[in-house]
């Protein structure tokens, strides 16, 4: 009898105790029109920068902003990468979103169309800051001509190559490959075979990036253009796909998969110890070389072009700072975003994180920063210059998920169950009907 009462009793006791806990006090959420004791507007700023490296940098920028004026107080909330946007969506739906959030630049227009992000054109009409940013980035934030987010950071894809391996193979370490033909030729020279195994692989184009980057590199445009034309089954894409398939045939699935597992897991990279001669990655890959393969003698170059004169087009992404729809203090939020994307904060971010930033002035002065080592400066300034050849792939509003129709077809090419021509034709047809369906409604 006594025993049986202990359960409810313990429950009651603990719940009484817990109502005293912070987790059970309602009303401590950052209420919409929140003001603190000093009468400042309090802004809730959501980012996914919680790492040892990034967190102190963003918090320093926030502190600087808070101290620079006495109207607004920004509070930082870290949320896990990727999941942050699930939470944001729920918060927008409930009408209680944060005041500023960092979001993917490529889907900015989509969020504009779907009323998830606030239209910033009113603020820009008063004070046009668009020319502070790389045009390619700025354009990605537009939906029907209006901006829905201000570009924050960005990246590109560059070719890292091992200079010592170049020398060993009789190549000039100051002359990285500039065309696809050279890339193939150099890779063959860099290959070191031991029986059936490779001691060094010269290059494999689908480690680090996907086929779509090579197609972008070859034809300089996205799969769906502004007029909703689908450009998947093209002569250039076909040639690219056949070229990529050729690499697969050269090295064979066994070799490719054993390396790929390692590269995809982001635990170690064969480029670090010289068992891979060339590798395509974002410029921040340099920080991994710096931290984990300090002795590596490497160079960095633009992606080779398909044919001379075709262009060294590369692919990039990035993030914007935006105001979620329904946020209660848009003016204050915009004020903070302007600071966040301004030259001073951007340069600090760029230098501390070795990250490409969207603000042109900041990017260019960061490239001169004496806080970088010689290698760091080399990579950073190259990446900054390369921004002019870097394209984004904004999600087309007419078919946001179209890559879901394309990827499986291309996978089948590499699995050997479809020819490149078949795959592209089928993908073209699928995406065309997708676009037609979505635009008709």
């Amino acid at each position, binding site marked *: 009898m006594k025993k049986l009462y202990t359960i409810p009793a313990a429950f009651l006791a603990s719940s009484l105790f817990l109502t005293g806990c912070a*987790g059970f006090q309602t009303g401590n959420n950052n209420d919409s029109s929140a003001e603190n004791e000093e009468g400042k507007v309090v802004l809730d700023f959501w980012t996914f920068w919680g790492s040892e490296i990034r967190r102190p940098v963003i918090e320093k920028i926030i502190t600087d902003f808070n101290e620079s004026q006495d109207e607004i107080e920004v509070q930082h909330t870290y949320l896990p990468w990727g999941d942050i946007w699930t939470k944001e969506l*729920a*918060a927008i739906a*409930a009408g209680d979103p944060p005041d500023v959030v960092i979001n993917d630049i490529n889907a900015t227009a989509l969020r504009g169309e779907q009323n998830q992000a606030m239209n910033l054109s009113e603020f820009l009409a008063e004070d046009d800051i668009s020319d502070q940013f790389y045009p390619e980035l700025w354009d990605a934030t537009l939906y029907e001509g209006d901006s829905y987010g201000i570009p924050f950071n960005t990246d590109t894809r560059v070719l890292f190559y091992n200079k010592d391996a170049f020398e060993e193979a009789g190549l000039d370490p100051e002359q990285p490959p500039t065309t696809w033909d050279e890339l193939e030729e150099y890779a063959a020279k860099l290959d070191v075979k031991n029986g059936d195994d490779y001691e060094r692989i010269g290059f494999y184009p689908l480690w680090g990036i996907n086929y779509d980057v090579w197609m972008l590199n070859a034809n300089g445009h996205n799969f769906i253009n502004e007029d909703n034309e689908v450009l998947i089954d093209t002569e250039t894409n076909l040639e690219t796909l056949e070229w990529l398939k050729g690499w697969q045939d050269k090295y064979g699935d066994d070799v490719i998969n054993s390396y790929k597992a*390692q590269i995809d897991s982001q635990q170690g*990279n064969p480029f*670090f110890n010289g068992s891979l001669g060339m590798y395509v990655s*974002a410029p921040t890959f340099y920080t991994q070389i710096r931290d984990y393969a300090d002795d590596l003698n490497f160079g960095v170059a633009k992606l080779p072009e398909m044919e001379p004169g075709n262009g060294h087009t590369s692919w990039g992404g990035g993030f914007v700072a935006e105001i979620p729809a329904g946020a209660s203090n848009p003016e204050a939020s915009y004020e903070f975003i302007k600071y966040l994307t301004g030259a001073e904060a951007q340069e600090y971010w760029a230098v501390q994180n070795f990250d490409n930033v969207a603000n042109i002035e900041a990017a260019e002065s960061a490239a001169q920063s004496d806080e970088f080592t010689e290698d760091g400066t080399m990579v950073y300034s190259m990446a900054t210059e390369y921004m002019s050849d870097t394209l984004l792939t904004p999600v087309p509003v007419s078919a946001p998920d179209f890559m879901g129709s394309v990827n499986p077809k291309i996978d089948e090419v590499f699995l050997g169950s479809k020819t490149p021509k078949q795959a592209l034709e089928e993908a073209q047809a699928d995406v065309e009907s997708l676009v037609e369906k979505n635009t008709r409604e």
Partner: protein
Amino acid sequence: MTSPQEDTRYVEEAGTTRDIKNPSYFEHHGNRKKMLKLINFVLLAAGSLMILSPLWWMLSTSLKTMAEVMSFPPTFFPESWNWSNYIRTWEAAPFTQYTINTLVITTLVVIGNVLSNSFIAYGFAKIPFRGRNLLFAIVLATMMIPGFVTLIPQYVLFAKLGWVNTYYPLVVPAFFGSAFNIFLLRQFYMTIPNELIEAAKMEGASHFYIWRKIGLPLTKPAIATVAIFSFNGAWNDFLGPLLYLNDENLYTLQIGLQVFKGQLNTQWNYLMAGSLLVLLPVIIIFFFFQKYFIQGINLQSGGK
């Protein structure tokens, strides 16, 4: 899990058939038996090693330096055993606070699930009332709705109640029963003979009294199962705390672990150290309540 057992059975059978044909079977019977035991043991040990290897990989990664994690080819044993990784992991975020938070939520969820579900299940099993079967069917039907569909409406509801950034949305639902647990416990209550309930009623016992004095003690194994599964569910819940908590001081362990996973790179050594620490209570609970775990799994698969 079943494959080592099947293997053993196979070896035993194969051994027996061969033994009978062999004239020296009877002389060496003792040795043969030992031999079979040894083979059993080796096979089971090999199977366990295989199953344990990911856990070893976690442990080994958690002790490496980041440079070693990134080295190619990967190393199976750490070059140096960096136990300090565990301290640094714990200090990288307020993990002590997160542990307390997680414990508070988990405890309440377990209490809530045990009380509410056994209570509701008793009603469905032992109290006849009009529309009982229909109501029970509706309860079961809620299992058909995937959680993601109700995610946003639920969030909007809790936001309207002003419960965002509190533990209420994580804890209160546990006090209102869940279809699977109700089903599980109801099946258990059904096995209690109605005569027993009738007899107690004749003696003047109320249903509440019968539930407490007869129902709960007789369904202990099932209740333990419910408790263990709700512990695991609440302890490992990521989406709930992610959605409802905004204040970093209220975060739970599962959210805390994400600190080590970034957009570009992951601090694998810290992530693995943290994951092992978070996994520890689950492993300990498993050791102590193995019996109920296995029973629970049997009940689950039997139920489906």
